[in-house]
């Protein structure tokens, strides 16, 4: 049989070709090249499935496919690394991308948008870049596609470039993430300088080398006699910079809400499966390196936990549908970071998976609502859509339940596992425990703003004419919603660890086994290996593991329900009111996102002031000196010419004086007068 891995490049290239087609011939194609994109992503999806099955068949793939620059110092190469993690991610990305393409038929084409070829070209390139990032077998290649993802987000967020908003949002998205990527790039360079390679997998990979170096065997370059451990921590944090930027972690999260300027399907793609996921995926990808540096892990965990809570609080007061979802995204990725920091590698990947589905679902649902509401996103103009658009409602509800982490929806399982990991590992890790606490506090808030959103949108009385008579949506909207809705319900069951632990049913933690190379994978890239090298030891409360599981689950579920209940009381009424007044002074702070955007704007302005200052300096001082030299010499020239008075007698005088001077000089020099 033909080798599935032979088609790994095809997975990446198919969407790329759809990009070329849409760009080149899109305007001659039906639906502006949509079908090309759908076909390409469908193809990639199928191939990914096939590859996943191949991995399940006990095989893995790690090949260098193309040498970018063959130096003697380092070889810079492109390659594909297929292990359980990347295989899973491939399936997720391709699936979401496919559904988004289909949905776009309804959201873009049917809405009569212009510039569709550009749109589908962007989607295609976006998907291709993300897939390239997923299969990357070394840090440099990962960085390259990471950057291309950034470019695509710029292009798609700024899709409506004729309006003032989107271009500025796009600029902000690229700039903020670029700021993070700066540290990432320094990290990449540092990795090369330190290890001479950036490969993820294998004996010669930099995690392996790092492990060896820490074990004392094998030496690596470190700047200025820095300790190996310290230096690895620095490198890890540098790479983390890119993650914080792309995965919109505090303090570089500000670009993400603005990114809502982009078309809704794009938001779905960005948030669920591609750009924002990329950051977390990167950490998971090189987890073998991070696991070696406890400090980094602790920082990751704390930042993640903080971001989870911090973003959730901001989601509470937003009025636009997509804004709420945006902050929920930030918050959810905070959870994933918390998991990774807490050594919950599997938990993070788990949440990445479930979140991919339910967040895509929520965004597409929101898109469907937005279609219905004629692109009015204000939830206060909605209400009572439940009866008008049942499909959207029930799928959206499923997604919301998952997001809120209500048993037994997908989100519950993954979030619960994250908190569990954070708890058991955090008991003797203060920083980690802090992350856990914040994560826990975020649970009710999440549930609250989620259902505030649901109730305001679908329940109660319609609060506007359009809400009374919304525009119907077609199959191309409902289809994807249905698929994702069902996934949001069931995905959780791939990894029912609590059930396993409580009931002692062995082997239903499929994801664990999957990521543990139980079926196949690459040595050194398995969860238990990470657990081995990881710094954490588990502690339990309430005596023993099972109680801990139960308590943890109960607490988080209880908090979630509490939040839901509050939302129910406040907003599940015929004509809800804002209630934000109760928040008092905090309200404004939350409305203004803790004034972080203002802070960044302030920084930008100060930078421009410095630039202006240096420009004045350049023109005034530096160039002034240059021009000054010329004017001084000209002035000197006009002094000199005055010697030529025109009076011949004075000429004779000066001539004589000159001659005498010459005589004196030579006389003294030669000593004639002695």
């Amino acid at each position, binding site marked *: 049989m033909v080798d599935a891995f032979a088609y790994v490049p095809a997975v990446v290239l198919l969407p790329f070709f759809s990009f070329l087609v849409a760009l080149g011939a899109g305007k001659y194609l039906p639906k502006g090249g949509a079908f090309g994109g759908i076909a390409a992503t469908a193809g990639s999806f199928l191939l990914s499935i096939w590859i996943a099955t191949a991995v399940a068949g006990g095989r893995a793939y790690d090949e260098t496919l193309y*040498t*970018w*620059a*063959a*130096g*003697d*110092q*380092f070889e*810079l190469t492109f390659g594909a690394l297929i292990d359980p993690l990347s295989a899973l991610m491939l399936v997720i990305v391709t699936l979401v991308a496919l559904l988004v393409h289909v949905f776009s038929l309804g959201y873009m084409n049917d809405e009569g948008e212009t510039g569709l070829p550009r749109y589908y070209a962007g989607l295609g390139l976006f998907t291709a870049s993300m897939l390239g990032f997923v299969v990357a077998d070394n840090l*440099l290649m990962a*960085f*390259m*596609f990471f*950057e*291309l993802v950034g*470019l695509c987000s710029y292009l798609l967020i*700024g899709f409506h*470039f*004729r*309006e*003032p908003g*989107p*271009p*500025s949002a*796009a*600029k902000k998205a*690229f*700039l903020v993430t*670029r*700021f993070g990527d*700066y540290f990432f*790039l*320094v990290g*990449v*360079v*540092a990795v*090369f*300088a*330190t290890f001479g390679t950036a490969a993820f997998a294998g004996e010669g990979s930099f995690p392996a080398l790092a492990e060896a170096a820490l074990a004392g065997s094998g030496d690596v*370059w470190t*700047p*200025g006699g820095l300790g190996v451990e310290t230096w690895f921590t620095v490198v890890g944090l540098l790479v983390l910079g890119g993650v914080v930027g792309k995965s919109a972690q505090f303090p570089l999260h500000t670009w993400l809400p603005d990114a809502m300027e982009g078309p809704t399907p794009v938001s779905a793609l960005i948030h669920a499966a591609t750009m924002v996921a990329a950051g977390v995926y990167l950490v998971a990808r090189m987890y073998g390196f991070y696991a070696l540096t406890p400090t980094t892990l602790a920082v990751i965990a704390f930042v993640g936990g903080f971001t989870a809570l911090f973003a959730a609080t901001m989601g509470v007061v937003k009025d636009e549908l997509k804004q709420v979802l945006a902050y929920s995204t930030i918050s959810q990725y905070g959870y994933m970071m918390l998991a990774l920091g807490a050594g919950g590698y599997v938990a993070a990947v788990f949440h990445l998976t479930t979140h991919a589905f339910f967040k895509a679902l929520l965004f597409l649902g929101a898109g469907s609502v937005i279609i219905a509401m004629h692109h009015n996103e204000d939830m206060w103009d909605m209400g009572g859509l439940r009866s008008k658009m049942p499909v959207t409602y029930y799928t959206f509800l499923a997604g919301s339940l998952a997001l809120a982490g209500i048993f037994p929806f997908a989100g519950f399982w993954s979030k619960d596992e994250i908190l569990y990991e954070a708890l058991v590992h955090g008991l003797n890790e203060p920083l980690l425990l802090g992350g856990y606490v914040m994560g826990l506090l975020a649970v009710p808030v999440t549930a609250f703003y989620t259902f505030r959103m649901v109730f305001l949108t679908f329940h109660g009385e319609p609060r506007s004419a359009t809400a009374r008579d919304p525009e119907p949506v077609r199959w191309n909207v409902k289809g994807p919603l249905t698929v994702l809705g069902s996934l949001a319900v069931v995905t959780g069951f791939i990894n029912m660890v609590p059930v396993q632990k409580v009931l002692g049913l062995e082997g239903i933690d499929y994801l664990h086994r999957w990521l543990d190379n139980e079926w196949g994978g690459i040595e050194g890239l398995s969860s238990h290996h990470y657990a081995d090298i990881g710094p954490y030891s588990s502690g339990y409360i309430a005596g023993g593991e099972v109680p801990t599981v139960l308590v943890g689950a109960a607490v988080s579920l209880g908090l979630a329900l509490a939040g839901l209940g509050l939302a129910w009381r406040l907003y599940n009424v015929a004509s809800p009111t804002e209630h934000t007044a109760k928040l008092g002074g905090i309200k404004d702070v939350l409305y203004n996102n803790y004034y972080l955007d203002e802070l960044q704007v302030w920084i*930008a302005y100060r*930078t*421009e002031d*410095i*630039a*202006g200052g*240096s*420009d004045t300096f*350049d023109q005034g001082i*530096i*160039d002034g000196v*240059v021009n000054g030299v*010329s004017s001084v010499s000209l002035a000197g020239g006009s002094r000199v010419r005055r010697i030529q008075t025109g009076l011949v007698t004075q000429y004779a005088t000066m001539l004589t004086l000159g001659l005498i001077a010459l005589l004196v000089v030579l006389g003294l020099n030669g000593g004639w007068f002695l």
Partner: protein
Amino acid sequence: MILEALIGFTFLAALLVLLVPNEWAGRLAFALSAVPFVGSLYLWSRFDAAGNALTGGTIAFESRYEWVEVGGRTVSWFVGLDGISLPLVVLTTFLVPLAILSAWTPVDSRQSQFYGLMLFMEANLLGVFTALDFFLWFVFWEAVLVPMYFLIGIWGGPRRKYAAIKFFVYTNAASLLMFIGFMSLTFALGDSIGSLALPEITRALADGGLETWFGISPDRMAMVAFLAMFAGFAVKVPIVPVHTWLPDAHVEAPTPVSVLLAGVLLKMGTYALLRFNFTMLPEQASALAVPIAAIAVISVIYGAMLALAQKDLKRIVAYSSVSSMGYVILGLVVFTEYGVGGATFQMVAHGLISGLMFMAVGVVYNATHTRMVGDMAGMADRMPLTVGILVAGAFGYMGLPLMAGFAGEFFIFVGAFGAPSLPYAPVFTALAMFGIVIVAGYLLSAMQKTLFGPFRLETDYEVGPAPFHDVAPLAVLLAAIIVLGVAPDIFFEMIRDAAMPVVEGVSVDV
């Protein structure tokens, strides 16, 4: 012979174009300028050099005839190529036809003189990159000034005369400083050299041929000469603080001239730095590594900050060139394979990208007759194709992966970060790398203000899609940038081959 043919043909082409009537000049010049390009491709295909031409590597297409004997030193017509010069020759012959094409629209008077001078300049540039004898090289080096003076002075903007004379005098002063430095060096070499051929001088220096000369000890002499040459070339590059002629020249110069100025002329400076300072006097270079690296970093950051403050699109690109050249200096001074090789690669990459940027800005200017950020908005609405390419080029400038710029910059960074010969290399590198954030800052905000948003134009001109012969060169350049970015090794391989001897310090074989 083939190199003589190449240069000679270009000179004759210049002469011919000077004589034809204006209305033909553009097309004829374009047709003629295609020939050197094809020729350089042929050179590429037949390229068989190994190692660095100055350090005893085999020189491709070498040819040498004695010319003048002065003071016991022979000056000869001595040309040849190695892995460092060939890419620059190809770059030159590739950019000139495109620049000529981009001149069809803006240049509307005295065309035959314009295109003749362009070709005359190309011939001299080819000479600069192929000459292997100091005086021959210096002849071409100085001869480039003459056409440039006219090109800026006649067809330039409102302050063209000021810009032209500033460029002319400033760079010439620098050349004189460099000349004195280098000449003292050669005379301090005494009888260990019998000619001014660069390979011979390099070898003599490597063999420690410097003698005490009028009471100047060899080390002192080498250091003084290094400083004089560095200062002289720094003006050409240009690096802070001797850069101020560049923005003026760029802003006043017509588009095609800016293209060549940024694309090729600046590379003369870095090329000379590599050939003279870093190949001939590596010890001094690494002794001064820290100050030079500091200057490089300052050029990067300061140039970027200046670009951030500009309102004129051309000025923005001009200052960002200063910034990019800083990377090149950093790459050169670290003496690693990726550093020096990357610097050379970056010369080519930046040549293409800055050429593209200036060309694209020029196309916009042809339509709007303004380059001020405040004067226009939403150009993407009226000239989508041009803007699309402009955006692509801008991202190339920001170092987007899989475009040439990223390759060059990454090579430099990865070569510089762990460089053993440069103290605090990681710090310098990391500081310099911050340039990629600032460049994104000013390019993105400039694009947002001018290209996107609702269409608005202060000057009253009808803006429509640009003519084919304006957009075609942009597309070609973009394609070249992407090809180089995806497959840098097509140049980087030969560059490494020629750069390694420099890295290892001048080797003493032959």
